[in-house]
């Protein structure tokens, strides 16, 4: 069977296996599992832009917050179902992503400046949102639990949240699987590896980037809605500060950028470890789990630059059907 088929089979099996989780796990562990899958989802969504297009974007907090805030605000003030709120959040996030990328392309920002500019936009978003009283200001918005149900996106137990995020992550993995084999995916990788060469052979670099960014933004916004409903709380710091997405980016890098399994593996390994550490060692020594994270990141980058997935790839001796090493493009200067 081809590698592609194997990936699909593996994905299906894993998903099936994971559905058993809420039955065997305690509430505490269910919570961790939900967070793990959420990170896997966010990593995979970011990876579309960061790993496959090679654009190091720090703008994703804006998309995440769009989803979270839109759904929360509309649910609180207009009793609108968070699913519709999610659509609104997506409708807000995608234009933001497109605008940022268009600006960057129009002004020909090199990679470093692009990264810093997106970071600046995220910070600006943070300052703006926390200054708007209607959005809850510094404290954010609290979602008062009301009637439960799928349409209201509120549940009595954690299990439905788990199934939702499991479906979301599995669906996204499937999407990435398709994306890797699609024309758009090929174009993205070509743009990543050498934008000028790509243009020379007729690939519309800007168009490709915009389409992938739009998808990534929409997916991230959806996750934002999910997280808002899960935590019943949206606030500027949780959604817009760099903390969350720095972790997303690092998990993706550890797992392996620009690969199907990389972001998922990265999250699946690091999130539970982090949460376990946070629950045990960090109670005595606050911050210890971050120390472990830091050490892991440093060690991985020194010893396994291609990430965890890269190690398996080399061991398996796959002859490159891929265009070179994922996530590593020739340095074109900052």
């Amino acid at each position, binding site marked *: 069977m081809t590698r592609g088929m194997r990936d699909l089979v593996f994905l299906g099996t894993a998903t099936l296996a994971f559905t058993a989780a809420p039955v065997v796990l305690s509430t505490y562990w269910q919570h961790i599992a939900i967070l793990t899958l959420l990170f896997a989802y966010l990593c995979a969504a970011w990876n579309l832009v*960061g790993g496959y297009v090679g654009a*190091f974007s720090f703008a994703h907090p804006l998309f995440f917050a769009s989803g979270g805030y839109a759904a929360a605000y509309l649910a609180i003030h207009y009793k609108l179902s968070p699913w519709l709120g999610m659509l609104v959040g997506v409708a807000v996030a995608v234009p933001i992503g497109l605008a940022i990328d268009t*600006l960057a392309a129009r*002004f*020909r*920002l*090199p*990679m*470093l*400046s692009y*990264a*810093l*500019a997106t*970071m*600046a*936009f995220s*910070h*600006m978003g943070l*300052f*703006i949102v*926390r*200054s708007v009283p209607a959005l809850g*200001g*510094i404290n954010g918005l609290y979602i008062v639990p009301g009637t439960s149900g799928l349409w209201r996106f509120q549940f009595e137990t954690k299990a439905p949240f788990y199934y939702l995020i499991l479906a979301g992550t599995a669906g996204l993995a499937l999407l990435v699987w398709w994306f890797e084999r699609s024309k758009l995916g090929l174009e993205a990788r070509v743009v990543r590896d050498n934008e000028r060469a790509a243009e020379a052979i007729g690939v519309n670099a800007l168009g490709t980037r915009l389409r992938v960014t739009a998808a990534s933004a929409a997916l991230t916004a959806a996750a934002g809605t999910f997280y808002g409903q899960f935590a019943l709380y949206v606030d500027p710091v949780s959604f817009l500060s*760099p903390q969350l997405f*720095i972790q997303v980016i*690092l998990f993706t*890098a*550890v797992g392996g*950028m620009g690969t199907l399994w990389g972001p998922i593996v990265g999250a699946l390994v690091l999130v539970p470890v982090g949460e376990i550490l946070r629950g045990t060692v960090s109670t005595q*020594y*606050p*911050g*210890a*789990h*971050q*120390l472990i*994270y*830091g*050490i*892991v*990141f*440093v060690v*991985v*980058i*020194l010893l396994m*630059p291609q990430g965890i997935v890269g190690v398996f790839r080399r061991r398996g001796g796959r002859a490159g059907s891929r265009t070179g090493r994922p*996530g*590593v*493009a020739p*340095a074109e*200067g*900052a």
Partner: protein
Amino acid sequence: MEPQILLQTAISGLLFGSIYGLIAFGLTLVFALTRLLNFSHGSFMLLAMYISLVLHNIFRLDPYASILINVPLLFGIGLLLFRWLFARMMESHLIMVVQLTLGLVFIVESLLQMTFTADPITVPTAISSSKIYLGGIIVRTPLLVAFAVAAVLSSALYWMLHRTDFGRFIRASAQDPVAAALMGINVGRVRVLAFALAIGLLGVTGPLAIPMWVLEPSIGLELTLFAFIVIVLGGLGSFLGAFAGGLLVGVAEAFGHLLLPGTLAPIVPYALFVIVLLFKPDGLMGEA
């Protein structure tokens, strides 16, 4: 708006900006020589500040005096850091360097958090609460001291860059490492020393900034991001740009706090950054 207030704001901004400029200088030094972006730069400045805290608590040492200990200590750390970690990353892609240095940020900040908890702390100095009156302007003495030291240091560093052999080695290695090596310059050694110098510099900048800041383990990354904005604004690789950028950002920040409500005020430097970036992607004095 009275001119008095405008002047006060501008001066306050310039003074703060001199500190940003000093931080940015170190970053530029590293970047110009190694093309590496050290995301952990601010975290080491934070480390220096916490070391001052410890020395103050144990030995009643004034933070200004702690500079004498911080500088060699951080210089040494810089040496080790480069030798063990950064030297290997010279050929690597930007993303990997980012990952490495972000990992360092996690390590440093978590160690600080484990030792000092996440509670905000302030460190008193001998002159923390005194003010100086210049004409109608009130300036906090520590801020003026910081500016004075920053100005002197910056000038000294600039002089070093342009009038000493070592400075010439640095600029040559930054401009064209291969040509520099062909000229007989030990580029590797220049890099190590310059990197260590940049970190050692934080041993001064940190204690200088203590009276103006509340210490928390998490502000290291914010400091670094701010410094990045300064150097890109001023022009990557330009030392003069780093200072100019620092001053500009300082003034922008001061006026932001004057004109906008507190929660929105910090937006000004970032907005300024984005605008400059769009119209002059190489920064104000960029040659990158």
